[in-house]
C-alpha cells in the first residue's frame, strides 16, 4: 500500500522533514570528475528532491554517510580524551538496491565481527533507508545475477516522476514523521506502489563455486594484476569495503592537542600490510588483487554465509587500467566448469 502525490507536495514534505532528519543522497557535481569536463556523482547532504540524482548510479557509494572518509575517533589533550558529538537528527539515506544489500555487509563487519563499533552503531541506529529504483540497468553493474537487484527491507520506497511522486513507507516511525511533516493520507491518492527492479544487466557474472586454497596459485591473478597500478580506487568506490587505518594528527599551535582519526584504507595500496621493523606481506599487485577478489567472492562468504560483492559494478567503472573484475570472476567460474 502506498501513495501518489504531486511532486511539489513531496518536495515540501521533504523540506519539512529536515527538521528531524539529515538527508543524504547522490548528487551530481558537474565538472568535478577526475578528468577534465567529467562529472561525478557522490553522496552529500541534500535539501530538496531536485538535488538528488535519481537515474544514474552514483560513482561513490552511500557508505560515507555511515562512516566518513576520515572520521575523528577522539580529541586528545595529554591523557584526556573527548569523543566527538554526534548529530541529534536522524539520517535519511537514499540508495539503490545494490547498496541496500551492501548495508548488510557493512553491518556484518561493523556490528557482528568482534565487538560492535561505537561510531558506526551510533549513526546506524539513526539511519532510515530510502530505496530508489533503477529505471534501466547501469553499464557495468551485474546485480541481477548476484540477487541484489531487488530489496524489500527499505524504510521508504520513493519513485520520482516529472510531476508525480510515488511512495511506499513500511516503516511506521518514518511514516509518522512524514505525516507530521504534512503527508495527508486523506489528501494523497492511495495506490499500490511496488518498487521496479532491473531483471537483466548488460554484464552477466557467474560466481565460481569451487574456490579454495588452491585458487591462490591461479595464473589469472598475475594476468589481471600485472596491469594494476595500486591506486585503490576500486576499494574507495566499493560499497562493501570497510578497511581503515588509524591516523593521529596534532594541531600546529600546540603539539599536545590533537585527534585520532580513522581513514579509509585500500588493500591495493602500498603500506596496507606493513608491520614495525620493515616486514610486509603481498608486495605484488597480483597478490593484492587476489586478496581483494577472494575476499569479495570467497572468504567473506566462508565467514558470514553470503558473498561480499553486491555486483554494483563501480570498481570496473572506475579502474584507470580497465581491469575488469567481472571478466576475472567469470573466467574463474569458467575454470570451475572444466
Amino acid at each position, binding site marked *: 500500500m502506498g501513495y501518489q502525490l504531486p511532486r511539489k507536495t513531496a518536495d515540501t514534505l521533504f523540506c519539512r522533514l529536515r527538521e528531524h532528519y539529515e538527508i543524504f543522497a547522490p548528487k551530481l557535481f558537474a565538472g568535478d570528475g577526475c578528468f577534465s569536463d567529467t562529472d561525478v556523482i557522490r553522496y552529500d547532504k541534500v535539501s530538496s528532491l531536485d538535488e538528488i540524482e535519481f537515474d544514474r548510479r552514483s560513482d561513490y557509494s552511500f557508505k560515507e554517510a555511515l562512516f566518513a572518509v576520515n572520521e575523528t575517533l577522539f580529541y586528545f589533550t595529554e591523557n584526556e580524551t573527548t569523543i566527538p558529538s554526534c548529530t541529534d537528527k536522524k539520517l535519511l539515506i537514499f540508495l539503490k538496491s545494490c547498496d541496500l544489500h551492501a548495508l548488510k555487509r557493512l553491518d556484518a563487519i561493523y556490528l557482528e565481527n568482534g565487538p560492535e563499533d561505537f561510531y558506526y552503531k551510533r549513526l546506524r541506529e539513526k539511519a532510515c533507508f530510502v530505496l530508489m529504483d533503477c529505471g534501466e540497468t547501469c553499464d557495468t553493474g551485474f546485480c541481477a545475477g548476484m540477487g541484489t537487484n531487488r530489496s524489500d527491507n527499505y524504510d521508504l520506497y520513493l519513485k520520482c516522476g516529472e510531476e508525480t511522486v510515488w511512495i511506499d513507507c513500511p516503516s511506521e516511525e518514518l511514516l509518522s514523521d512524514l505525516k507530521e511533516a504534512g503527508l495527508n493520507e486523506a489528501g494523497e491518492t492511495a495506490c499500490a506502489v511496488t518498487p521496479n527492479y532491473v531483471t537483466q544487466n548488460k554484464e552477466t557474472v557467474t560466481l565460481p563455486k569451487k574456490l579454495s586454497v588452491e585458487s591462490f596459485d591461479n595464473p589469472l591473478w598475475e594476468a589481471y594484476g600485472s596491469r594494476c597500478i595500486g591506486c585503490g580506487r576500486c576499494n574507495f568506490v566499493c560499497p562493501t569495503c570497510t578497511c581503515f*587505518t588509524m591516523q593521529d594528527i596534532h594541531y600546529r599551535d600546540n603539539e599536545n592537542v590533537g585527534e585520532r582519526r580513522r581513514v579509509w584504507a585500500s588493500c591495493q595500496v602500498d603500506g596496507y600490510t606493513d608491520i614495525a621493523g620493515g616486514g610486509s606481506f603481498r608486495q605484488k599487485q597480483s597478490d593484492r588483487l587476489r586478496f581483494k577478489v577472494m575476499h569479495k567472492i570467497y572468504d567473506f562468504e566462508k565467514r558470514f554465509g553470503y558473498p561480499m560483492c553486491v555486483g554494483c559494478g563501480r570498481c570496473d567503472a572506475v579502474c584507470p587500467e580497465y581491469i575488469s573484475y567481472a571478466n576475472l570472476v567469470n573466467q574463474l567460474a569458467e575454470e570451475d566448469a572444466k
Partner: protein
Amino acid sequence: MMKNEYIPFPSQVKKIIRHTDIEYTFRMEFTGEVKPGQFFEVSIPRYGEAPISVSGIGPDTIDLTIRKVGKVTNQIFENFEGNHLLIRGPYGNGFDIENYKNKELFIIAGGTGLSPVKGIVDYFSSHPGEAADTTLIAGFKSPDDILFKQDFEQWEKNIRVIKTVDSAPDGYQGQTGMVTKYIPDLPVKNPDNAVFIIVGPPAMMKFTVIEVQKRGIPEQNIWISYERKMCCGLGKCGHCKMDSTYICLDGPVFNYKEGKNLID
C-alpha cells in the same frame, strides 16, 4: 551508553627492564584477565598506536616488551618510568596453558617472538611438574640481541634451555647457529605426546615447522602465532585478515592444522 572500544586508558609505567639498546620491557599497571600471546594496542597520542604482545603477567601488572623500530615505539622509549602510556586490550585468543599440560613441551622462539610465549615459559618454569618435560630453544641474531637475560638465569634452573645466536664474535662462549640446528637432537620421547610452540619471523617459522615435522610431530601438535598489522584489534580495520580469518579476533595463536592454510 555502549562501550567505545577505541578509547585507550592511561596505564602507569611501573618499571623498565632494559634488555638491549633498542628493546625494553615496560611493566605496566593493569588488573584483569590476560593470557600469554594476547596483545594490547599501545598508543601515544599524536604518534599513533601499535599492537604489542604481553610478555609477562603479574598480579596487577602486565609486561610489554617493545622494540624501538617504528614511529610509535620510538616515541614510547622517550616516555619513561612513572609516566603513563595509553593502552587498550587485551585482544586476541592467546595461548591456552591447558593444551600443554602433561605433554613434552618444546617452545621455539626467534628474536622478539619470545615475548608472546614468555608467559608460557614462565608458567612451566615455575610449575615444572605440570608438563612431562619442558624445553626452550630461543634464537637471537647476536649476543647483543639477547632478551630477558635475567629470566634465562631462572629458566635454566628449572627447564631445558638452548639459547643460541645466529652469529657471534670470536670467543663467544654460548651456543651458535639457527634454532633449526637444534631440532634434530631434541629428546622427543613420544611424538604423539609432544607439543611444539613456534613463534618468530615468517621465514624462521616456516623452516622450523619443516624441521619439526621431520621429527614425526603431527600437525595438530604444533602451535604458531602470527604477527600482522592491526590498527583496531577489533575485527574492523581489515589489515590483519588472512583468508576468512581475522588474526586479531581468531588468532594470533593458531593450531598449525588451521594456521598452515592461512595465506596472506
